[in-house]
């Protein structure tokens, strides 16, 4: 799309005003998923499989039905008949099968039945009265084992067109890309290092468990309130799973208590609606934390082989990676994303990458912040660090030497537009952290990271009020302060104060389709749409001013919140402020609004470089992170404080993933650590302050230069921390998390 309206001097953008929902959120007034209730409301609860893999022989609900407080029970039979297709093509079927098991329970925690009762306790009690007869089947939860010839087959026919002949049926998608001749490249190298790496599945770990309140009638009309990253996908999916028309279901997104990719699909929402339809009363379902861990989307686990050749001067001659990702009992593990992102920071003549999407008896993976990218970066950047160590080269210099720039043919194919990787590396090199001395026992690591960023379907409306204030309706749930960013961008275009703009997350009945708040797309795409919608309104404001002045509309321009005459023959009029035009808009042609809808296609890829210091206790293998610096290209920071927050949050999640977070399965295929006590996300005392540097290399695909910032920040930490820990411990750590038992074992093995 033409960006004839690019802007680089700003009045409002780049300032740091208070967020519009701040007061609600510090007073407890903000309504999150579980905070809504309705007259006559019932409470739902879901019965889940205790087995990793089992045929469901029989479900006897008769005793539960006799419970006096039970008003409805649903099983798979209460959902629509959605067609099965291989791969991601049949995603509705995959989601339905995940939401409520069909013939088989495919993982520990898989939903098999649900109850609605007059209280939450009664619903839980009633679950215990449902008798399920299982025929337990062999299971597999490890990615390498799931690909082995003797692995139990999760589902025949799930593989799509991409999978080469002869692979195990659990391999359901395959990706291969690259360019040049890697063998020739390895032959040119002075040193080639090839190594294998493993990462465990982690959970997005949002503090708000999934919650929803649904009402659906036998007339096919429904209402749904839920915490989600995207209520249109909820609307579309629920309608498909329940066999109703999409437009008859109105979905309102609550305030959302974190998502990080994990709330981009549905789990309990169709169940609440099915129960509601059966009971003819509103039904609320709130997941427990244990249900969140067992039955919502963790990320994929990975097993990876990376081989890189380098010359003595640091030039990379060839790079190859094989990335096997396990995404639970459904297609979707982002092996393709891992492969495409792994080498993306570098300008490579010879590169080849292969990604596998493998099924196992685990919950269906969901996106988690730059899905797939952190694992690949861990493997690649670890090998790069080892090459630097062995060739005695500075790790930042080597990355600078090989860094991708504008015009570089990316490892995944296309050529880059203007990008900011070099700028982040130069900032890293100049940062005092990089040259600060280390204490004994400490090590320093650096890593680069890449993420594509995303545009996506977007629709925004803006309406002006008579008093000259503006309301903006956007369709992307605000997870981290995006209402403030939207208001800043609208203020910039309209020329009215930030405080005079109210941004609302519209429900599905109030706006056209909006893609999910994911892919770091909100500030980019909803921002772009907000800017365009505001410009649309400005055009109308100029028309009204022209009519009032009696001059042609092209003789009016918009400046600092006022219509002003433009050009030599426009006439001599005082600037007409926005509020003067809206004051009598009812009498001068009616309401003034702006609208914009599109799929913006210039998201602009993003790079970051992280520096981290770690200290390892050689006697116990315990690691502490002593210093952390995030440097990332934001294109243009609309609200810099929230950009910093995204950087810091990404780093913190990466620290958890690198050091302690993991899905631990027992031999029985059951998840062992489904509470926050045992699934160890970082606590306040685990972390240092996290320093940030915002690099601004404007994205040519956004009027203000915005690049998304939400996801790239979690790509470098795994590798940066692994490099720091490896350098501190004197032994290369190849498995995440680098928990103390693993570090101590590596230290012992190393003598």
């Amino acid at each position: 799309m033409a960006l004839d309206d690019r802007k680089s001097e700003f009045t409002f953008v780049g300032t740091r005003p208070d967020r519009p929902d701040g007061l609600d959120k510090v007073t407890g007034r903000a309504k999150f998923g579980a905070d809504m209730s309705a007259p006559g409301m019932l409470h739902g609860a879901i019965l889940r499989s205790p087995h990793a893999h089992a045929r469901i022989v029989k479900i006897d609900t008769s005793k539960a039905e006799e419970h006096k407080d039970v008003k409805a029970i649903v099983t798979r039979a209460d959902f629509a008949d959605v067609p099965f297709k291989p791969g991601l093509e049949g995603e509705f079927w995959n989601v339905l099968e995940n939401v409520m098991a069909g013939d088989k329970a495919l993982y520990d925690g898989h939903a098999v039945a649900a109850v609605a009762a007059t209280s939450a306790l009664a619903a839980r009690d009633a679950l215990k009265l449902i008798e399920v007869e299982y025929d337990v089947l062999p299971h597999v939860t490890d990615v390498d084992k799931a690909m082995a010839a003797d692995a139990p087959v999760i589902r025949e026919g799930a593989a799509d067109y991409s999978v080469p002949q002869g692979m195990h049926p659990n391999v359901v998608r395959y990706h291969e890309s690259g360019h040049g001749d890697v063998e020739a490249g390895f032959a040119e190298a002075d040193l080639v290092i090839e190594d294998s790496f493993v990462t465990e599945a982690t959970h997005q770990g949002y503090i708000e468990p999934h919650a929803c309140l649904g009402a659906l009638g036998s007339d096919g009309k429904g209402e749904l309130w839920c915490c989600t990253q995207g209520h249109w996908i909820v609307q579309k999916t629920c309608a498909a799973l329940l066999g109703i028309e999409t437009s008859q279901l109105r979905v309102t997104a609550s305030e959302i208590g974190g998502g990080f990719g994990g709330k981009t699909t549905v789990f309990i929402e169709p169940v609440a609606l099915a129960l509601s339809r059966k009971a003819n009363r509103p039904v609320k379902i709130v997941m427990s934390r244990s249900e969140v861990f067992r039955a919502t989307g963790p990320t994929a686990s990975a097993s990876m082989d990376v081989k890189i050749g380098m010359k003595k001067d640091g030039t990379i001659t060839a790079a190859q990676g094989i990335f096997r990702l396990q995404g639970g009992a459904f297609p979707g593990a982002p092996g393709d994303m891992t492969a495409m992102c792994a080498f993306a920071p570098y300008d490579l003549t010879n590169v080849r990458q292969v990604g596998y999407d493998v099924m196992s008896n685990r919950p269906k993976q969901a996106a988690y912040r730059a899905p797939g990218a952190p694992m690949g970066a861990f493997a690649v950047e670890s090998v790069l660090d080892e090459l630097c160590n062995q060739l005695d080269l500075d790790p930042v210099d080597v990355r600078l030497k090989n860094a991708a720039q504008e015009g570089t043919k990316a490892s995944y194919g296309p050529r880059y537009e203007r990008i900011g990787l070099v700028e982040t590396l130069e900032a890293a090199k100049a940062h005092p952290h990089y040259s600060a001395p280390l204490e004994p026992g400490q090590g320093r690591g650096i890593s680069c990271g890449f993420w594509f960023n995303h545009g996506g379907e977007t629709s925004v409306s803006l309406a002006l009020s008579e008093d000259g204030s503006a309301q903006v309706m956007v369709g992307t749930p605000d997870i981290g302060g995006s209402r403030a960013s939207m208001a800043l961008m609208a203020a910039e275009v309209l020329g009215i104060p930030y405080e005079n703009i109210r941004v609302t997350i519209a429900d599905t009945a109030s706006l056209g389709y909006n893609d999910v708040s994911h892919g770091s797309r909100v500030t980019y795409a909803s921002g772009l749409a907000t800017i365009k919608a505001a410009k649309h309104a400005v055009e109308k404001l100029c028309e009204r001013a022209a009519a009032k002045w009696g001059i042609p509309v092209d003789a009016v321009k918009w400046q600092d919140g006022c219509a002003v005459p433009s050009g030599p023959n426009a006439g001599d009029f005082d600037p007409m402020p926005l509020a003067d035009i809206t004051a009598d808009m009812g009498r001068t042609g009616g309401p003034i609004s702006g609208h914009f809808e599109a799929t913006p296609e210039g998201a602009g890829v993003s790079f970051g470089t992280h520096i981290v210091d770690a200290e390892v206790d050689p006697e116990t293998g315990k690691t502490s992170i002593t210093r952390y610096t995030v440097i990332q290209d934001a294109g243009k920071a609309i609200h810099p404080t929230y950009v910093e927050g995204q950087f810091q949050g990404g780093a913190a999640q990466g620290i958890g993933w690198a050091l302690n977070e993991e899905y631990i399965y027992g031999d029985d295929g059951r998840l062992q650590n489904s509470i926050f006590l045992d699934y160890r996300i970082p606590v306040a005392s685990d972390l240092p302050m996290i320093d940030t540097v915002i690099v601004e290399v404007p994205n040519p695909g956004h009027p203000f230069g915005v690049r998304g910032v939400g996801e790239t920040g979690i790509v470098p930490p795994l590798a940066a921390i692994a490099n720091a820990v490896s350098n501190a411990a004197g032994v290369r750590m190849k498995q995440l998390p680098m928990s103390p038992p693993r570090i101590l074992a590596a230290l012992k093995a190393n003598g």
Partner: protein
Amino acid sequence: MEFHSPTSFAEASALAAKATGITRFLAGGTDVLVQLRSDLVTPDTLIDIKKIDGVGKITCNADGSWTLGVAVTGAEMSEHPELGRDWPGLVEAMDLIGSTQVQGRATLAGNLCNGSPAADSVPAMVAAGVTMTVTGEDGTREVAVEDIPTGPGKTSLAKGEVVSAVNIPARGDNGGDAYLRFIPRTEMDIAVVGVGVNLRLDGDTITEARVSLGAVAPTVLLVDACAEAIIGSTLDDAALDALAAAASAACNPIDDKRGTITFRTEVAGVLAKRAAKIAYARAKGEDL
């Protein structure tokens, strides 16, 4: 579930004695409520003992020993100036359990009766020689802490018996205690290994010692071999190595989500040394 709030231990004991099904006493509730909520244990009878007179008191007796009510929380122990001066290791062990919020509720008796081998306060109590007063239908008896847990989630308390007081010995002269645990984070974890050390000096020489290990066996262990390794020494390197070896040798752990057998065995020795050094310094009057 029936809920009772008796006003005496005799009443509490009687309620428990006649109850059928699963009975739990509710002090801080930080374990009972978690088990209730997760449907692990849903008691048929829950007896809240916090309405009983005196359960919130910390008393220093004339002989220097201490009596703590069973509802005294970790936070109250940490805030008590003299208790922490006498038994810093014990107070710190209690303080390690959970968050500030959990400290506002959790109790020594609850931590003990939950029966977890990884309970942080228990090795510290064992090392300190703490006893529990137990009230049953036939009156009260005094039981050493190490004799109460019999396995994960199990205790030696009979039906109708309830812990009614915590008795901490007099500190006496030239003594010091310490408790260290290993967790992967800095807070909010269950001990992977825990070590409590309590010792007394004559000059520079250790004359008495009790060393206790947590999370390395089905119950918290009182390890005589550890004590023997350092008694008679000035905690020189040889004694420390012997202590570490004895600690590791006493371990009988499992591989689980929190740690491996190898790791626990190794780290038990490491922590035993570190804890002994702290206890020794405290016995010397150094402020740690």
